[in-house]
């Protein structure tokens, strides 16, 4: 089987993001599932986690979004609102969310292309995608923590959880998985 893949973007970091203490630029982007526009004012009072990622369906992003999706109950413990952002169209986001069962609203920075990524200083002008970056914004709209990962590296979620713990003063509690599959019944044995 031939695997088709476009050439990857240049590795490393091109745009360094915004430092903590900066007022968070507004979003105003349409989001999955229904295209409703999300602004920071909508989520005023709650910590916000922004996950900038280069593109729907790309291998590293798929892993990264899958991980954060799994952690939604954990991030919910801190009252955090979580959004994924890339320069893909809303239709691409919808297909990506459906494929991976992603519950995180995905914001589309598609038109005007890359405008919000530019405001957060994570846009790559040469290829028209955003960096792989994480932001934790406090309830007053100020950036509390930020991290730009080398684009080829999935940053994981430990930095975000550490930041939310410091921001809220709460310790992360134990996650409770909901068993999705029924355990076998004794009579089912053959």
């Amino acid at each position, binding site marked *: 089987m031939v695997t088709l893949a476009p050439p990857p973007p240049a590795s490393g970091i091109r745009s360094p993001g915004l430092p903590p203490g900066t007022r968070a630029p507004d979003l105003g982007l349409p989001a999955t599932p229904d295209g409703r526009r999300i602004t920071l004012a909508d989520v005023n009072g709650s910590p916000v986690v922004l996950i900038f990622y280069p593109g729907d369906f790309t291998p590293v992003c798929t*892993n*990264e979004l*899958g*991980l954060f*999706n*799994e*952690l939604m109950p*954990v991030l919910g413990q801190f009252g955090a609102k979580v959004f994924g952002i890339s320069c893909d169209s809303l239709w691409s986001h919808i297909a990506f969310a459906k494929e*991976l*069962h*992603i*519950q995180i609203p995905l914001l589309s920075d598609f038109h005007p292309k890359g405008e919000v990524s530019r405001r957060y200083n994570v846009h790559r002008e040469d290829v028209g995608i955003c960096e792989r970056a994480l932001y934790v914004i406090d309830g007053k709209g100020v950036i509390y923590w930020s991290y730009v990962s080398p684009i080829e*590296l*999935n*940053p*994981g*979620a*430990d930095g975000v*959880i550490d930041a939310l713990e410091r921001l809220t003063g709460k310790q*992360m509690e*134990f*996650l*409770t*998985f*909901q*068993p*999705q*599959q*029924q*355990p*076998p*019944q*004794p009579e*089912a*044995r*053959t």
Partner: protein
Amino acid sequence: MSRLRRDVDANDWAKGPADAPVTLLEYGDFECPFCGRAAWELKRLESAVGERVRFVFRHFPLTQLHPHALLAAEAAEAAGAQGKFWEMHDMLFQNQQNLEAPALLTYAADLGLDMGRFTRDLQEHRSLPKVQRDFIEGVRSGVNGTPTFFINGERHNGAYTAEALLAAIEQRAGPHIEPMTGLPWEGDRVPRMGRPQSRM
């Protein structure tokens, strides 16, 4: 560089000597196809490095993506309670397409487990807290997807072919590890995961 928050201890499933100069720890998901591929690569690696590497497995089920992964992890633990963790680990990776509850019972029976005990362990979710603890500790240690490997406690960010893992091990372990023999070619000496074993 992300580091393990908890060192390997007696609660972990480990294969190989405790005083091996290198510990290769995997956070894995039994339904993840990349972990299935990695399991085969680890077999190749194991046959080349022998006793010089200790292999450890911790659970990282991505339940939103893999609806069978959690019960499969519990099944591995239930087999482990009867001394057959690695046997079940291999069985699950060889049968990733079929991890429904009845299939898990078949694998347990094939391994000669006490079926009453195995079934009861799954029904009571006896090992669920351990699986969840593995997952959460993994997240806090910077596990960013499956599989994620740690070599002597440091996250390995490269590829997970046997060749790449061997190169990373040799680099990390430095003078503490003797030069290793070559890796077997694919299909040579070690059974290929998910395929019938070729004739020896």
